């Protein structure tokens, strides 16, 4: 297979970026998208050019490190999959494919397709945890959890923190990510004692990081590789409003 690639190249955070054209041939249909980029990089290195910088690690769809905006979509056209789980057979021979980094003010570009998503870490640091020091825990079975609640908590916990929700959102909002964590911990009794403070602190940090506002468009849900649901955002709204309006 042969492809025309238009790849976003940007030297560093301060420089301006632009699309650069590459043509790549002899691509096997069974290759993953990242393996195709590997092949391209190999060619670039051999030609003495600077290879394309991009983030990736586990390459099995779970670490959340890969982060490309492919063909106008976060993680590309495949449903519920990360970039590393996108295979070249999804495309047609001769296709032109745009490859850009996740773009948002809160995700500054580091180089080419690699972006800085540490804002997510800071949001978790603000309150995305249960304050329990090692050794303080009671017996694991002393606190039964309704199976349905546990399942829903797991649904929310499945978030891999890749940032596709922000990338896909026309407003660059991070609500799906933040709400997934708030939801998970709100649905489990372990998260109960801190739920008000958690909602306030995490939302505060989210706003301080410069993410956009949610207008319930739903692009985040549609592009999430782990299929995190919008219901989580509604739950976060409730948690936050309960914490700010009802609480003394």
């Amino acid at each position, binding site marked *: 297979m042969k492809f025309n690639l238009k790849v976003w190249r940007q030297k560093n955070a301060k420089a301006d970026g632009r699309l650069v054209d590459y043509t790549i041939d002899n691509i096997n249909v069974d290759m993953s998208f990242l393996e195709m980029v590997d092949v391209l990089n190999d060619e670039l*290195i051999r030609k003495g050019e600077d290879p394309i*910088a991009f983030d990736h690690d586990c390459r099995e769809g779970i670490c959340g490190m890969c982060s490309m905006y492919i063909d106008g979509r976060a993680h590309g056209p495949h449903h519920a999959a990360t970039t590393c789980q996108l295979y070249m057979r999804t495309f047609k021979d001769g296709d032109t494919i745009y490859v850009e980094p996740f773009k948002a003010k809160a995700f500054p570009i580091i180089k080419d397709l690699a972006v800085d998503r540490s804002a997510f870490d800071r949001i978790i640091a603000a309150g995305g945890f249960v304050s329990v020091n090692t050794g303080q825990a009671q017996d694991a079975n002393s606190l039964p959890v309704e199976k349905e609640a546990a399942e829903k908590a797991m649904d929310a916990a499945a978030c891999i923190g890749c940032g596709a929700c922000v990338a896909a959102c026309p407003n660059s909002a991070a609500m799906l990510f933040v709400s997934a964590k708030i939801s998970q911990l709100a649905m489990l009794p372990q998260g109960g004692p801190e739920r008000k403070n958690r909602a306030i602190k995490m939302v505060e940090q989210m706003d301080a990081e410069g993410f956009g506002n949610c207008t319930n468009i739903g692009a985040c849900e549609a592009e999430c590789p782990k299929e995190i649901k919008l219901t989580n955002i509604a739950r976060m709204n409730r948690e936050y409003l309960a914490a700010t309006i009802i609480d003394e």
Partner: protein
Amino acid sequence: MSELNSKIPDGPLTEKWANYKEHAKLVNPANKRKIEIIVVGTGLAGASAAATLAELGYKVKAYCFQDSPRRAHSIAAQGGINAAKNYKNDGDSVFRLFYDTIKGGDFRAREANVYRLADVSRNIIDQCVAQGVPFAREYGGLLDNRSFGGAQVSRTFYARGQTGQQLLLGAYQALERQIGLGNVTMYSRHEMVELVTIDGKARGIIARDLITGKLERHFGHAVLLCTGGYGNVFYLSTNAMGSNVTASWKAYKKGAYFANPCYTQIHPTCIPVTGDYQSKLTLMSESLRNDGRVWVPKTKEDSEAIRKGTKKAEDIKEDDRDYYLERKYPSFGNLCPRDIASRAAKEVCDEGRGIVPSGFGVFLDFAAAIKRLGVDTVKARYGELFPMYQNITNEDPLKTPMKIYPAVHYTMGGTWVDYELMTTVQGLYCLGEANFSDHGANRLGASALMQGLADGYFVIPSTISNYLSPEIFTKPIPTDHPAFVEAENAVKERSEKLMSIQGKRTVDDFHKQLGKIMWEYCGMARTAEGLTKARDLIRELRKEFWSDVKIPGLLNDFNSEFDKAGRVADFIELGELMVVDALHRNESCGGHFRVEYQDQGEAKRDDANFAYAAAWEFKGVDTDPVLHKEELKFENVELQVRSYK
């Protein structure tokens, strides 16, 4: 440094850990604030250690090469985590988990460590549940367990197919909490490139900022390596692309012995290699073997026809199929342990009966299960796995058999540590998969997560104070100390040398070649002859690498190729050590199978001569390493032959 002192506490096995904790020296809270600890790696072991030590009051600095501590490869573990809770009342106990782990490790692990691991396994579950890890539950609201990896009891806790991810998020959140409180300074996108020792003690590291390429000096009263396994020495493995041995290797070169490097776990059910471009092998859960039947055609002709595409699996009649695991191991059949299933696959493929174009692949067939249970039941049972397989291979396992082949998965060997998890360098600790300690020659399913968290949450916080207690008198050493300067200069010199080569071959080229050598000669079946040859090949490869590697870009920049080059350079040296270790171990045990030492195809252990951990001391890149033996004493279990016939 010549004598290995494993510092196993006195007393009966069941009381050693309690005794140790009661008598270990402590650091008072006011003094903890003055002590700085460096934690390299933020997987299960690193994140749990960093969080716990910070909770205790130490000043912690944590490092990871990924963009966030949440991405460490612990996330990829699917199956579960073992704990001797006996919630199922099916006869489990700490001793039974201990025994299973020792036996599963083919009697090549230290009794005291493994017992402690089994003991604290229960606390791990408590801790993780308290953090909000969403483990699977029963309708009554209590925790669910399953039997995993052929264990006779149900002791495996799980969170869908994401156990590793959820446990790591628990530890990561605990770590982020401490970062938020200012007790931990986090250095993401940083890679440790050198260990700094002063007067024989670990006192810091040199780290490379992967964004700017700048070298940084960091001081610590103690240094913890929690940097994972070295499976990527094979190039293709189930490890993440970035997983590497560099931190452990720098420590090895600074005096930390490296133990049992040849013990490698090869997982039998991975998706086969399809081409040279392939960057990674994907693991399909072991649970598939519960219903899948493994087979290849009986004749080479049929296999060849399948490889060429002139015949399909469905065209091979039942009588012409060889269900070789069921044939060879009638009592365990398709559920025999990982190492045995892997070797059997290699055997039939070496006979020319492989069924993928490369020749290295076998069928895993669900037709019988579908006939017995119906499509819907089978589909429901392996919910996420079939679509995942189909996405990668474009074949529907409900219609045509899966194709699988073994792949490197986990490395039991690693930096040698004593009972306190301290390496042979004072103040340098090693936790999790990076150390050699608990799994002997083979790791059982669902015990890697257990070990990482045991080390981080429960072992290191108790053992490190024993070392740090007198360290309260050591003032933070300024990083302009000559040892730091010298270490940084050494890194700089090596980096510049790498960049100056500007040869013809890419880093991946070398890495792939190394992987092929390792897989061919130091993979599932090893011979003295092959290993000897491999050593020469690796040495040649090393010379070629240092004279012909091509690294683009600049040193002081975001430069992934340079980062890779540094890692591959270390892998090449490690590869040689693995071969040396495999060559010296004239027996077959667990993840190390020497063709010369077998009993009708079964591994033949030599307890009389090899019941020891082999710890290697670095003496120079071109000099043979020196072997130190830690004799393994088995006082509580009887050494047996593992048999699955």
